[in-house]
């Protein structure tokens, strides 16, 4: 799991308004330019660009990634 670049990417989406807008407008292009790997891009797109940009209730994002909530906790 290579996550250094992904961490920087998510932080930028959450703290840089212009970057967030660019990501929402053209997610593939922005992710490519940022150098995200294929796995990270696929994961983000499978969850949903709007959701990853923080514009969706986070509990709904949780429901996508962990629909059964059965393992731990």
């Amino acid at each position, binding site marked *: 799991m290579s996550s250094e670049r992904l961490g920087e990417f998510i932080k930028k989406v959450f703290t840089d308004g212009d970057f967030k807008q660019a990501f929402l407008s053209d997610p593939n292009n922005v992710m490519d330019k940022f150098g995200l790997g294929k796995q990270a891009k696929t994961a983000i797109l499978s969850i949903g660009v709007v959701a990853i940009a923080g514009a969706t209730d986070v509990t709904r994002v*949780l429901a996508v*990634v962990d629909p*059964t909530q059965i393992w731990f906790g």
Partner: protein
Amino acid sequence: MSPGCWRSLTPPKSGSDRAEILQCGFQPVYQEKQAECVTSEIGALVASSRGDPALQNMLRTWVFDRDRKGSDERQSPWPFLTLHVCEAICGAWEHAVPAATAIELFVAAADLLDDIEDGDYEFLVEHGYSIAQAINAVAALLMLGQEAVTHLLDKKVRPRTVISVTQVLVSSGVVACSGQHAEFECKAGDISEEEYVRLVEMKSGALTECACRVGALLATDDKRIISSYALFGKKLGVAGQLANDARSSISSRPGQSDIARKKMTLPIIYGLKQADGPEATFLRSIFTGPGDVTPEMESEARRILVALGAVHYTLVLAQMERQEALDVLESSGISIEANARLLSSVGLDKGHTGLG
């Protein structure tokens, strides 16, 4: 089913209720049959043991009731993982029930130890048990789990395979204990993301890997297939733990969260790494400084983590693990159709789509 049964899903009252439950990945009717088999096996094991009735009662109470602590109706998924994997590969699951029972007892023991280690005495207080009794019960659960494995012989499973199942349970348990031990040695605020993920693989990953590997061992001799399902289980466990970390960072009860306990999890490690200026100083003061975390500090830390994208970052990593789990399964040589029940039970079927 009898009161106190481990499998507590209430049958849905209408078609739409049923559809909703199925959409959530559960299969009430089918799993009820499997659950009854495992419940019956556990009940027989406890009853036939030569233990004191008071101990037997404590074991039953813990194993059957512990999944209702959160007041929802969720059930232990562990036995189903073993049974679904076995069925996906060979088309049958009944002969794997003793192994699924062993997994359930094994995880029940681990859950009880976790509560003791986390200082969560809700169950003990509610039922009037001491910590010493809980530790004793953990030992009994582990031993009953070993006995459960021997019942595979009654199902005509080959002795060689029974030995392999025992070896997997033991080695997985030691790996999980090693992960727990390493976590105790970590100083708060002094663990890298790579180290944390390695610990998750050893703890959560080892248990799900074990459940899947055992199910595969009871279905085939093909080492490649067995390895594929074991890796699938490991990825699934890591994904589940990361999702749990994310959930815990935003929704735990005040005073019970990972923040309040200064427990290093991925969102917190991410936050400590990504925060700047006063927010970084604040987070470090919480996780590396002395003293308790007040509700106000907990709330502010949570706000900072959410604002930095810590929850979303953790969920993306969890999703990557889920994708890898699916990839592994697709390359196993077993059709997706055969794996449908397994995938549905863990929320990896096509019914679960993104938010767009």
